[in-house]
């Protein structure tokens, strides 16, 4: 715990130090919203990867992998592949267009203030949805480290991030994000390497991929903070609060605050929603039904096409010098994110063999934080502190990026639409008020999402982004015939249907294929939003004078075809 406090403290202090340095540089409003000076592709890619790797990547992937097995491997793959799709269809054209947020793109491409407002509303939905899992991650991590209640971590990270954003805006955040990427890579990579060297994947005949149930590697004492329902698959001898018992096959209820001792070699019992059986854990599909295949492909669709629609990611492409460097930044981000995703599985696999006690209490989400401590001694405590620092780095970086986008949409796109010409100072104050408001909402909602898996919440934010913004960006960039009405209807339909499906899943989960589709709606809502945009556009009057806009997006950076202004169309203020 001491190392955790020191290392988490260093990350927080460095965040504020670099952020404060940024404040001195942030002189104009455009500096504040987005770093105006161009940043090189390597810095930029580090910053994007730093902002992108959130609680879902740092804790969520390994945690869910530990709990449910290989079916979860589709998540990181889709998270990374999103950058390939972004590179192929969006990066360079959008940078050349000069829009730095999605509402700016919508407003500039269709000369419509109404579309700016509509897409700003969707930014709020995606941004807040994505903030929830970050808050949850902060809550569970802080609780594990200090024993403080869940709410304490949520409030702590919420307040820190809101302060940082209100003080520094985007400029302060840019270099902080790059620092956060390398912190996270170090914090997940080093302990993973040490764990593999110390433990290896197998313990005698027990390997993570063996058939049957995992077994306790030693006599293990497990404390149950709350009443827990377990499914016992194989009869075992246990000691409950000092009294020997036999648990036979079937359900067992463990009372709150019980201490249960499991013998070496006993098969691990677990709550019903945990996949402990070896074969199901090892295979990338939970069962052989066609719906598990559809769910996997739907998840890949959501994550691959959702990345481009994440409000905090696209902003960063604006800080590239031109289309060429935007492309290089996208490839760089793909590489950096990919390297990171090669590590989380180590924690899940080693946890399965060496720390199966986590299955029993259902604390699967903290496997990344718990497993390095198995090494024991000073080294174990240091590595445990390192992963804790990495987790905090993930909450801080992603939440601050999201908060800048949400506050920007609130102050610049929504309020700013009604008072268009206000002095710089008013705009800054408006942004600060919006940041505090947005942070407050995120903290409040963060208290409610504790029952949901971090990764599942993030997957939903991607599904909404894919359904609403991906069709807008792809058709807006590549199809001259897209009209204002087409864009508005498609975006509205995609956003409303996907959000509704997800809210139904959260409040009243369904079963069977209806349940699978409501929980992973992208495979239906993304094509539906695309076809709505196309059909409505074809039925409305073709837009005029879009050639120059599209030429600007698609002409090579060096080309001297029709002369265009080098300044972005829609930048609010220039210093």
């Amino acid at each position, binding site marked *: 715990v001491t190392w955790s406090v020191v290392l988490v403290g260093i990350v927080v202090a460095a965040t504020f130090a670099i952020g404060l340095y940024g404040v001195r540089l942030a002189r104009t409003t455009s500096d504040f919203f987005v770093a105006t000076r161009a940043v090189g592709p390597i810095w930029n890619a580090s910053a994007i990867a730093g902002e992108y790797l959130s609680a879902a990547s740092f804790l969520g992937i390994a945690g869910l992998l530990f709990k449910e097995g290989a079916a979860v491997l589709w998540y990181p793959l889709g998270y990374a592949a999103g950058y390939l799709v972004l590179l*192929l269809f969006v990066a360079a054209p959008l940078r050349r267009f000069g829009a730095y947020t999605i509402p700016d793109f919508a407003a500039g491409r269709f000369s419509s203030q109404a579309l700016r407002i509509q897409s700003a509303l969707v930014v709020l939905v995606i941004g807040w949805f994505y903030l929830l899992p970050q808050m949850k991650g902060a809550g569970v991590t802080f609780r594990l480290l200090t024993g403080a209640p869940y709410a304490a971590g949520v409030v702590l990270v919420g307040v820190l991030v809101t302060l940082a954003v209100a003080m520094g805006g985007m400029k302060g955040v840019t270099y902080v994000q790059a620092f956060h990427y390398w912190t996270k890579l170090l914090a997940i990579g080093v302990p993973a390497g040490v764990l593999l060297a110390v433990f290896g994947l197998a313990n005698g005949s027990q390997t993570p991929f063996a058939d049957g149930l995992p077994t306790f590697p030693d006599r293990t004492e497990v404390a149950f903070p709350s009443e827990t329902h377990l499914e016992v698959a194989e009869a075992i001898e246990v000691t409950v609060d000092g009294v020997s018992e036999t648990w036979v096959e079937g359900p067992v209820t463990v009372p709150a605050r019980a201490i249960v001792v499991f013998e070496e070699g006993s098969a691990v019992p677990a709550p019903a929603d945990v996949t402990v059986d070896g074969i199901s854990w090892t295979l*990338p599909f939970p069962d*052989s039904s066609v719906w598990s*295949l559809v769910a996997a492909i739907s998840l890949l669709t959501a994550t691959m096409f959702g990345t481009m629609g994440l409000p905090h990611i696209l902003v960063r492409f604006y800080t590239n010098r031109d289309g060429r460097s935007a492309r*290089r930044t996208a*490839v760089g981000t793909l*590489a950096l994110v990919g390297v990171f995703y090669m590590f989380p599985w180590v924690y899940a696999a080693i946890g399965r063999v060496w720390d199966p006690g986590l299955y029993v209490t259902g604390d699967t989400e903290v496997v990344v934080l718990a497993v390095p401590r198995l090494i024991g001694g000073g080294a174990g405590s240091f590595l445990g502190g390192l992963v804790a620092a990495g987790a905090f780095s993930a909450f801080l970086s992603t939440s601050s990026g999201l908060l800048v986008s949400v506050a920007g949409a609130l102050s610049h796109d929504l309020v700013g639409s009604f008072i268009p010409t206000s002095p710089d100072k008013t705009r800054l104050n408006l942004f600060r008020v919006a940041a505090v408001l947005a942070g407050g909402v995120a903290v409040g909602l963060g208290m409610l999402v504790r029952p949901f898996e971090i990764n599942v919440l993030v997957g939903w934010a991607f599904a909404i982004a894919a359904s609403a913004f991906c069709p807008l960006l792809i058709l807006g960039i590549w199809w001259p015939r897209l009209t204002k009405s087409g864009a508005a209807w498609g975006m509205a339909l995609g956003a409303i249907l996907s959000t509704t499906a997800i809210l139904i899943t959260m409040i009243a989960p369904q079963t069977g294929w209806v349940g699978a589709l409501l929980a992973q709606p992208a495979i239906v809502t993304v094509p539906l939003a695309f076809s709505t945009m196309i059909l409505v556009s074809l039925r409305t009057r073709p837009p005029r004078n879009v050639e120059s806009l599209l030429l600007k997006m698609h002409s090579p950076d060096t080309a001297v075809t029709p002369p265009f202004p080098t300044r972005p169309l829609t930048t609010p203020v220039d210093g």
Partner: protein
Amino acid sequence: MRAIYLRSLLRMNLSISLLYFGLFMLIAVLIPVMFWLYPWVAELMVGPIPLAWLVLVVVAYPVLVAFGAGYVRSIEEAEAEYSELVDEP
């Protein structure tokens, strides 16, 4: 004049993007389908880890980067040719 420029530009850029996208999607759909149809393939052990894990946690990422780098090369070559063509009086 502008409309002609635009049409040729769009066609050139889109064909390169769609080529890379199509190839990638082919892999992105075929791999899940293969593991779903033939679970024994997913379970084949390659050293200490199953094939499905090797593909999804190690091999997939360099392949993604290779696709990205290949696209950047193709599109920049095409853009260079296009610029030369346009610049000629």
